[in-house]
């Protein structure tokens, strides 16, 4: 690990100012990903600005009229997953968080930090390898290499990495908004769908945050599918592994007819992949396995798998069907 300066503060404006002053500084929250990357010499900040003293940890109802809840960015993942309000109103989020990492990591990891996880592509981690995300212009080793875990949607010639968070997949299905504090002290809200980006020609950028911006909370609008939601994560072992494919699904039902379906996928793209095509096909249809299969098929037909991950197309289809069936059955 390279030497770095450690700074802490209990004021968000101080934190922002400190970060803007030093172009090589990074924010530090739970550190469960950043510290690993520093040990691997992938991230090389010369200053860490510790945010963990900021009072941005609360989980609370949004003000009346807004109908929803706000989850503090610096609250721990474990706390969010186990919070009664989230378990009752957003069980999908709870399930997705608990499908990720290990109990120890979730105890350290923050909600905001979870959103900012970097890819687990092993070429990104290995500094002896080319990687456009780590070292722009050096090439993508994964595209013609070991890419079993990689993207089937939205990749570019420059990068085929996937975004690893489980939590964010649920947030996508839940249409969350990410509230950030800007350097001028004003807040702005970014839809989860616009927060992460596809790699395009700039895979070094994972998201649309601007330098200095600090996530303050994640806001979840009210939904009508709390009792009809499911998160399924398919992976190489039963816990503590990143998704081959994951699906977060919620269905709003009127009897057995689908009013609306909300489907997001993990492990398939550089961001949580919202299955809009499947959703559109399901709207107004009966909640039957045959309809789920048609919708899932239509979604997965758009996939462009790589040499080693063709299986993700069938796996994605099956997992969508399985998640929709579970969601329909309800809790």
């Amino acid at each position, binding site marked *: *690990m*390279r*030497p770095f300066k450690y700074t802490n503060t209990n004021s968000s404006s101080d934190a922002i100012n400190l970060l803007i002053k030093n172009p090589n500084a990074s924010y530090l929250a739970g550190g469960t990903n950043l510290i690993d990357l520093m*040990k*691997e*010499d992938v991230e090389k900040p010369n200053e860490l600005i510790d945010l963990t003293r900021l009072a941005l940890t609360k989980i609370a109802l949004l003000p009346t009229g807004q109908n929803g809840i706000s989850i503090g960015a610096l609250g721990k993942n474990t706390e969010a997953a186990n919070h009664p309000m989230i378990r009752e109103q957003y069980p999908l989020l709870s399930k997705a968080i608990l499908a990720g990492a290990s109990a120890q990591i979730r105890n350290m990891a923050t909600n905001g930090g979870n959103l900012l996880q970097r890819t*687990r592509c*092993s*070429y990104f*981690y*290995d500094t*002896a*390898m080319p990687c456009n995300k780590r070292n722009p212009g050096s090439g993508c*080793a994964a595209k013609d*290499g*070991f890419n*079993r875990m990689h993207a089937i949607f939205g990749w570019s010639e420059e990068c085929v990495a996937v975004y690893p968070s489980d939590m964010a997949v649920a947030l996508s299905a839940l249409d969350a908004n990410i509230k950030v504090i800007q350097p001028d002290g004003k807040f702005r809200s970014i839809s989860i769908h616009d927060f992460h980006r596809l790699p395009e020609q700039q895979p070094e950028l994972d998201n649309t945050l601007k330098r200095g911006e600090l996530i303050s909370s994640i806001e979840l609008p009210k939904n009508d599918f709390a009792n009809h939601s499911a998160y*399924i994560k*398919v*992976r*190489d*072992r*039963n*816990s*503590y*592994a*990143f998704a*081959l494919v994951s699906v977060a699904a919620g269905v709003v039902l009127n009897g057995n007819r689908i009013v609306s379906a909300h489907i997001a996928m993990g492990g398939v793209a550089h961001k949580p992949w919202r299955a809009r095509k499947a959703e559109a096909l399901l709207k107004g249809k009966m909640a039957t396995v045959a309809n789920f299969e048609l919708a899932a098929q239509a979604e997965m037909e758009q996939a462009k798998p790589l040499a080693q991950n063709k*299986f*993700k197309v*069938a*796996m994605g289809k*099956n*997992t969508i*069907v*399985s998640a929709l069936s579970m969601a329909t059955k309800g809790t």
Partner: protein
Amino acid sequence: MEEKNKAIGKGVSRIEGILKITGKATYATDYPAKNMAYAVLFKSTIASGTITSLDTSAAEKSQGVLAVITHKNAPKLNLKGGLRGGALLQSPEILFHGQHIGIVVAQSFEQATHAAHLIHVEYQKKEGKTDFDKLLPNAEMPKGKELADLVRGDAKAAFENAAVRVEEIYETPIEHHHPMEPHSTVAVWEGEQLTLYNGSQIINGAQTAAASTLNLKPEQVRIISPFIGGGFGSKGGQWANLVLTAVAAKMVNRPVKLALTRQQMFNSVGLRQRNHQKISLGASKDGILQSLSHQTTSHTAVDSEYLEPCGDCSKIMYEVPNSLISYRVVPMNVILPTYTRGPGKSTGSFALESAMDELAYKLNIDPIELRLKNEPKKDPSNGKPWSSRKVVECLKEGAKAFGWDKRKAEPGTNKIGDDLVGYGVACGTYPARQRDSSAVIKLTKKGNNVNATVEIAASDLGTGTNTILAQTAADGLGLAMENITVKLGDSNLPPAAGSVGSVGAASFANAVNDACTKITDELLAKSGKQFFVRPTAKDLMISENVSAFETRADAKAPTQADQYSAHSFNANFAEVRVNALTGMVKVTRFLAVTGAGRILNPKTARSQIIGGNIWGIGMALSEESIIDPRWGNFATRSFADYHVPTNFDIGKLDAMFINEEDKIPNKMGVKGIGEVGIVGVAAAVANAVFNATGKRIRHLPITPDKLL
């Protein structure tokens, strides 16, 4: 199994357990030394070629750095000193990706790690041998004589004439040992005397290899290794890191600590090689084997040969008149493979026992029945009688305990919700051997209180060696276990075999038992008296009022042991659930039934067996390391990519032992259980997956994508 008033046969908890759970057990890096410096290795980023430039100037100037050691300034070492895997900084030549190319020594670990990032290396690259699949057609005959083709009858003709045939290729990937304790060493020089604190499965082996490599006499080197945080073969032979720590300590004239990082563990301490195995089975219509061929191709290092003997199980498991066991090898620019739990037998049994399951399915007979039909009366490979063999009992008693009768013979027909349920069975074996070991017993008496110290340069991998030796000594001397102190893990103690190849328990316990018998005999002789009932050493210490007495025994295997074929055997039963939509597999139940002679301690024995089962389940379902042939590096480079089983992957585990008295391989009747616990496991799981889904996966691991 349990005898009254005897310590042996009781399920005693590990005597060092409290030390371990309270953090007081001293593993290699726990040894303090005044003025310790910290070493970090840095490694090549090419697989084949030569270092043309190595700029260490920035690192040398970096804060806290005491020395940077590379091939340019390293002392001359003996490359044939008995260490495995080379990488001793003796030349600029690179033979595999991740070869050590230097060490940074600094005041702190962090400073050393940082400085290592500042080193700039340039290479002249050569095209590396990094693609096993491409190299496969050019495989060569191995150099090792024990790996020459073993031919009995005419396997080819018998196969072609057989009524029912199975011929398939089975593939197992590169796997790593990854003990919880990474390989680590503290080196302390006092003048020309060197002490190495280092987890070592073979204490005397580590001593002689380190001494010889450093051009020292063995008596100048002391190995201290009372606790080992797992090894699984990777701490059997020793690797460059052991001696490089000593080199660094000499150069900076301070004690030095060097611990490999988890990432470095992938390419520093050997691995289980990839095996490409072709099995050809021919049988009559009623399921009598006519022909068995097991042809394995593996890879080894470009400068040294190690092959795990995948054909070993096939040599002895079944009665078959025509057989061919062969090995071919591909030299690759990859670190030297090495002994890995159940070497050859775990991987070889996957191929053989999967093929037997395929044959049973083709014949439409129960896979247990097929095995019973082909049970050999004597060792088919050499005609020797078995010292004991309880395969039939393992299969029959296991089937009963597991509820085998609930298995549905037709695959894919047992469904619960979206889950397909399947049962699988597979057998395994591992040789039982006793190796030369010496032990000293020291008795002391205060008043009527007699205490004993047992001294032996044995090692305890965490498996319970300390405990079984205390049990053995307690019974051998007539003492309670709390009056026994076991000293092991130190090369200054009487020399012993290693904790390798399942020889530990037999070799160490017989040495201790012999020393107990001898000390009792000597006390009897000293007393000059005759007794109706033979007194214990304790009785004699008291009756003859001896305050201190000691003796040493040098134990060897019984001379007649060679005339028999002695092995442990097992039968493994697996129940799996496979999600029909996602392909995810869970082993819901696993039972291993083992015939391994006398079980000294059923509790630690059970732990060892289920530990082997868990690795076998990992082998079946998730463990795989992948080389990117473009660079020769591992694309799987951390525990995020290399999937060992988690608690959630493991269902209910059970271990049963068949009563077996067999004093042919050694006087104590101990056959060894460390290796056999993993043998047959992967096949049992794969066979259960077939029974559940109708899909025969011949290329491990069985990840969800293969079942869609």
